[in-house]
């Protein structure tokens, strides 16, 4: 099971994902986050992955879809709190070359405003 908790403030949207981010739940969560960005017209986004225990290629696909969407709207996206497993999978797909990845929420907020 996988869930997403969405929040926003004046500066950004935060999407905290938890559970196994894998085929079966990714498309629903992908849409939720996308719709939330659209309805709040906010394309500065923090994706909190600290509670994600497992990710597969379909999960990576969702991260890429958000990344592309944010770029299209001249926004910024920061990924934070990666567990070892998630960090490894993102690294193998070389996505760490284009993603902004930080450890904590504070660093994420800083990175968004940099």
């Amino acid at each position: 099971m996988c869930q997403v908790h969405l929040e926003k403030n004046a500066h950004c949207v935060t999407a905290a994902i938890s559970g196994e981010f894998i085929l079966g739940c990714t498309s629903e969560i992908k849409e939720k986050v996308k719709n939330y960005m659209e309805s709040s017209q906010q394309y500065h986004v923090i994706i909190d992955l600290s509670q994600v225990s497992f990710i597969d290629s379909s999960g990576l696909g969702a991260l890429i879809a958000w990344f592309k969407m944010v770029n299209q709207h001249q926004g910024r996206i920061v990924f934070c709190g990666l567990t070892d497993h998630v960090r490894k999978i993102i690294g193998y797909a070389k996505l760490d070359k284009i993603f902004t990845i930080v450890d904590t929420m504070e660093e994420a907020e800083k990175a968004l405003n940099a």
Partner: protein
Amino acid sequence: MQKSNILLVDDYEVNLELLEAYLELSGIPMQIYRAYNCAEAYACVEKVSLDLILLDVMLPDGSGYDVCRSLKGFYAYQSIPIIILTALNDKQSMLEGLQAGADEFLTKPVDSHELILRVKNLLKMKAIANDLDQRYSQLHRELVIATELQKSFLPRTVPAYDGVHLEVLYRPSSYIGGDFYDFIQIDDDHLGILICDVKGHGVASAMITATIKFQMYDLRQYYRLPDQLLGHLNDRLEQFFSSTANDYFVTAVYGVLDLERNRFFYSNAGHSSPYLCGTESLVSLENQQGLPLGILPGMVYDCQQVVLQQGQELFLYTDGIFEIALRGKAAKSCSSLMDFFDGAELPIGLAQVHQLQQEIRQYTGSHQIADDVNYIVVRIEEQEEA
């Protein structure tokens, strides 16, 4: 309107006559079949495509509940609605019938209006189930055709050369897969090798493999330049995905095998690293750059070269192999061969890799798999001393 096939099961002739008379009153176009016991009921179910069964509980050779239970346990028969007829107007027998999977109950003596209403309702449900079944079969037939089409994109044969042996395993998961490979004979001494994995599933992934096949041909001027080829392929796929599915991406390795000098000149776009395996060595062919294809335009790929010695093997694969290799093991994922052999004490080499390949061949030969599995082995044969 098509006639509904209705089976009446009761050991008393009088009851059957009565039910039949009631049903005829309804005006529903139907063909009625009769069974006087369980055995005849089963025989009829096998012979006729039924739309409804009216089933008495007490039969000479068994109970109606058992007939109901066993029919509902068969995939082919479970959508046939069953009305259980019972003289026992108590909660216990109703619960037993529900447990057996019955759709409706009628207590004897049967009220003709109630009978007709329940029969009509269940026939309507059955018609919807039939319609779904038909659509599913149609979809299934189309998927089978798509599978055949996709097979036609794959190389028909594995090239064979003196001194260089190639081996391929390709097993799509269900019907059609997102894994794809190709061999391109550039000239007598150069073979282009592509292995890729479209991330995403089902029909769309398969259609993307068709696009890759087409784009590869269109980019044939770059066959000798892996980094250029992947760079252009990346831009075209990025454009293609941006107008269709933006969560799709493709990992790929493309390389040119120089058959004269046993060199492999390759680029990697986010794909699992190929491996060079020797008797007691296993070396990962890492690349510095190389984002998967289709994410960002203008990506630059680097190109590297490895020389294969006699007796060594080059192993290219998609990550589906790990799902098989890891089944039943504690680790839930691994993304490279090195990861997989992590912790093994012996020097890892060809023996271990061959064992893994054999395991994959055996398993995929006899099991349904969740992810596509594809690997390519290039072996430089050992030359006899002159």
